[in-house]
């Protein structure tokens, strides 16, 4: 009986679905604009009216990865003919690729991207590793003042980054950790650890205690039971937690801006610093942004069933 629907309900349903589609297009428009600008010829990025359809090209990425001398006259024909295809593309646009001897000079972008990768991966491994052990401890053992300890752990996550960064900057300066990978990794572990503990505790609580009991009866030690029974059961949870921690560390801006300036600088503070003064080259910025956002977009799809848990620190599950 409940399945019977009036025609007005059907109509309302259709309108709602149409509205959802329109909203989705609006929400995706800025992301489409980043992705499309990354493949636009320079002049189309700032055209009036804005260009939606165009012949895509890769010159923004070439400009992103090479050091350039801007707005130089085309070089002499022989040099032009001898150049590889991607250099010609840049020459065609009236710019020069900076070369020292025979080697093309890379821009700083690949370095900054690698810094982001190093810092995010190492800090994720450490935060998830420690978080998994701690979550198991909180999930299975009796701990005096457990609720208070968990609140303490969560509250460290809520500290505003700039507030923590002031004393950390001074302490790092004393021990020489400013502008170092290790310094940034420590900060990101500290930041992600509370999240990792809370999320993993939710996953641990869902693993039936009976599994370990059976193992203990079979003669396993508690540690063996943890490594051979609990960890494999928690694999999905560990993977989801790791992806969340990675994304947080990958996206982090304030600590990276304050603590690094050259050697260990990650992509988030680097990309805005490239805007400089005068007329910014939006296609190159879009190319850098596009490559930087791509991993996160892929991970979001992998994580889709765990997003709710992730954004609420494991407090609300589906």
């Amino acid at each position, binding site marked *: 009986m409940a399945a019977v629907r009036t025609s007005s309900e059907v109509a309302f349903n259709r309108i709602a679905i149409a509205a*959802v589609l329109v909203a989705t297009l609006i929400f995706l428009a800025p992301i489409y604009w980043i992705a499309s600008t990354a493949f636009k010829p320079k002049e189309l990025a700032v055209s009036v009216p804005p260009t939606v359809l165009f012949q895509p090209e890769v010159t923004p990425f070439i400009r992103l990865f090479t050091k350039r001398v801007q707005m130089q006259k085309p070089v002499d024909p022989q040099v032009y003919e001898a150049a590889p295809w991607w250099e010609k593309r840049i020459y065609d646009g009236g710019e020069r690729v900076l070369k020292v001897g025979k080697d093309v000079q890379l821009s700083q972008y690949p370095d900054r991207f690698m810094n982001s990768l190093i810092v995010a991966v190492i800090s994720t491994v450490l935060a998830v590793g420690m978080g998994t052990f701690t979550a198991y401890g909180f999930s299975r053992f009796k701990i005096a003042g457990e609720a208070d300890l968990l609140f303490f752990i969560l509250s460290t996550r809520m500290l505003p980054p700039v507030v923590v960064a002031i004393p950390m900057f001074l302490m790092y300066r004393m021990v020489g950790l400013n502008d170092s990978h290790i310094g940034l990794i420590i900060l990101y572990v500290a930041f992600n650890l509370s999240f990792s503990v809370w999320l993993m505790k939710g996953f641990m609580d869902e693993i039936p205690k009976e599994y370990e009991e059976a193992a203990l009866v079979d003669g396993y030690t508690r540690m063996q039971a943890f490594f051979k029974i609990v960890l494999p059961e928690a694999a999905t949870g560990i993977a989801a937690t790791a992806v969340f921690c990675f994304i947080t560390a990958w996206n982090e801006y304030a600590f990276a801006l304050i603590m690094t300036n050259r050697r260990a600088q990650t992509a988030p503070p680097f990309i805005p610093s490239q805007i400089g003064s005068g007329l910014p080259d939006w296609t190159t910025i879009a190319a850098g942004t596009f490559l930087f956002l791509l991993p996160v977009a892929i991970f979001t799809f992998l994580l889709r069933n765990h997003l709710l848990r992730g954004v609420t620190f494991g407090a609300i599950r589906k």
Partner: protein
Amino acid sequence: MASVALTNLDPASRAAARGWSDLTIRNLFIIPTLVFLIVFNIFPLIYSLGYSFTNFAANRSEPWQFVGLQNYRELLSDDHIWSNFVITAKYVIVSVAGQMVVGFGLALLLNRSFPMKGLITTLLLLPMMMSAAVVGLFWQLLYSPSWGPINYVFGLGDFAWLSNPDSALYAVAITDIWMWSPFVMLLSLAGLSAVPQHLYEAAAIDRAGWWYTFTRITLPLVSPILLIALIFRTMEAFKTFDIAYTMTTQPTAELIAIRLYKQAFQQWDTGKSCALAYIVLIMVLAITNLYVKYLNKVKER
């Protein structure tokens, strides 16, 4: 029996005799994390509490002096700081209200079955997963008065969203609403799907109208989770730094976190900025406390 034994292992049992004791394992698993957090989060805060009573400046080598509560007194009577708090309050109200309305609205629309619902939900969640600093930077192009697609689509001519003192803060808030409405949507969807279907059937049998059903069944049952979204977003919006910092330099959009950053790392007024950090910290902890309280309440249900 066994389940009792696991949480509170009898020391004489066979399992306890093998390998490390549960007490050792528990300490081994928990203490390193607690020590790490204390060393890298709590200790720095104690350190900066000390500096907040001095006139220390990190870029000068002169010895600092103890100034007592002077930093706090100056800050609390500084009109500039108060205007930063007012700007932050405006920003929090506009952006969180926008996120609640758009997010809950989207959730109501999505709360039905249709083809590719999963894909569309995931696509809608993309903005909040991305780096606020980097995406915020790109919104400068979207808002651009000369070639921005936003002004073109809405026919706004050369309205300078980000360099107009009156609109800069709201332009940042709009971007924040775009980023974080999906968060509210995600939580609201979880709340909506938990409303027992039989309540709606009963309302339909009673020929209750749409508005009546919405205000008497949907809202009361979803409100706890909406409240969680509200408090969480309020806390995050209060701390906002990156998105506003990369989007605009307008003084009218100088949130308290940006003020704090400038005072500490551009003016190098370290002692005073430690004091300001403490004022901000106390406010954040108050909201956090509220958040955890409601989180526990919802968990218990």
